């Protein structure tokens, strides 16, 4: 078995702050979600959103989130990244769509340069001073996993010395309005993996970066699976087969490496049907593993969630305690759902999962080197 590539760095930006602040806030049971008009200045129903401090939902030109993102990415700015053997993978599910919406509503052409995918990435790349070797990935809410897997393959195959993965998703009335139209973003605050009459999600601003390397870092990317069940645009196979298929190679790799004491950071947006399927699939693939999820405190950070939550999971492994289900309350779907904190001190590793519209699933095994 070839040696897995390593996670040399992984940091996130959430409304709580950086990785350490985010982990601490979640461990204290805090939530960044606030009841916010779904269409920003145009009003609408109040729904749970988690925005960066001081940021309004409405878009400015240039986007108000850019300064915060540039500051967060300072450790990975400069022309060393984006060079031939140090590629950058940029991932998002929405890029600058908020700017497109703002242009559509206001007619102000100042929004247009930031609105397209390539325009948004060019904006970030310019702000960070990266070289030309920048590749863009987008596949809804598994976008970050897609970029991370590509980066790992580049490094693992020797095509790159190290790779940088950057993911960002900042909310806009367009995105919030879309989820609201689907009725899964509603007035209720999310309680992932918990029995309730009504399922609900929250949405959040999020960004993260990871550096993948061959020989530095205290964690290995032990296995990484992506699978698209292609059952329906907004629904999973009712038997949960999509989740099981994504988990299987990760469970196999964990067994092969003798990693038995695992915990699972699930996707868990707070919708009932997918939450039940994921809960059951986790129990089947990783017997005895406790399941937690943090979107009840951070909101769903969309395409960046895989990397945002990976940063928190890695920090939780280092710190010895992982937050229980954020926003969760008894009764949970099953006994392995962790409504309280998980002791990670003796754990062999964590499985980080994300799911997306279109039936896409991702699962990643992170373990100590």
């Amino acid at each position, binding site marked *: 078995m070839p040696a897995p590539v390593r996670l040399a760095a992984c940091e996130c930006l959430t409304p709580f702050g950086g990785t350490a602040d985010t982990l601490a806030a979640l461990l204290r049971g805090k939530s960044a979600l606030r009841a916010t008009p779904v269409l920003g200045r145009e009003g609408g129903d109040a729904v749970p959103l988690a925005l960066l401090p001081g940021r309004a939902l409405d878009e400015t030109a240039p986007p108000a989130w850019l300064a915060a993102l540039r500051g967060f990415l300072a450790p990975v700015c400069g022309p060393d990244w984006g060079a031939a053997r140090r590629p950058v993978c940029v991932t998002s599910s929405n890029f600058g769509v908020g700017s497109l919406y703002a242009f559509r509503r206001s007619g102000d052409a100042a929004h247009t340069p930031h609105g397209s995918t390539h325009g948004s990435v060019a904006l970030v790349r310019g702000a960070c001073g990266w070289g030309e070797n920048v590749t863009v990935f987008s596949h809804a809410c598994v976008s970050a996993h897609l970029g991370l897997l590509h980066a790992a393959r580049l490094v693992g195959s020797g095509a790159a010395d190290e790779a940088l993965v950057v993911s960002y998703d900042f909310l806009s009335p367009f995105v919030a309005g879309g989820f609201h*139209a*689907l*009725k*899964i973003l*509603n*007035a*209720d605050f999310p309680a992932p993996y918990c029995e309730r*009459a*009504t*399922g*609900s999600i929250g949405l959040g601003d999020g960004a993260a970066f990871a550096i993948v390397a061959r020989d530095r870092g205290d964690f290995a990317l032990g296995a990484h699976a992506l699978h698209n069940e292609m059952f*329906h*645009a*907004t*629904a999973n196979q009712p038997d949960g087969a999509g989740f099981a298929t994504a988990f299987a190679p990760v469970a196999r790799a964990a067994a092969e490496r003798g990693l038995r004491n695992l915990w699972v950071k699930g996707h868990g947006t707070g*919708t*009932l049907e997918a939450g039940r399927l994921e809960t059951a699939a986790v129990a089947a693939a990783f017997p005895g593993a406790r399941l937690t999820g943090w979107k009840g405190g951070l909101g769903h950070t969309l395409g960046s969630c895989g990397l945002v939550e990976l940063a928190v999971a890695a920090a939780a492994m280092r710190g010895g305690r992982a937050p229980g289900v954020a926003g969760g309350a008894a009764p949970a779907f099953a006994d392995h759902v962790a409504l309280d904190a998980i002791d990670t001190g003796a754990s062999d590793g964590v499985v980080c999962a994300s799911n997306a519209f279109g039936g896409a699933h991702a699962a990643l095994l992170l373990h100590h080197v």
Partner: protein
Amino acid sequence: MSSDPLITRLKHLIVETLNLEDINPDEIDENAPLIGSGLALDSIDALELVVKLEKEFGIKISSSEESKAALASVKALADFIRERSGGAASD
């Protein structure tokens, strides 16, 4: 054909909103499931229909679970609309 004008109106609204060209509104069974079996509408159809219903009848459907319950059948939908509009949507 149903003698309930709201049910008749809903059948026509469903066909028109979802462009169900091969379906005669009068042939829709008011008790048959709308989603999955029966008319075999999917979640995207449901989304379109909910947006239309909220505009047409001035009602609010607040969650996906409520949406599923309201769209259980044409009759269930009629009952839901009457309940939400205080009986004002009978004609």
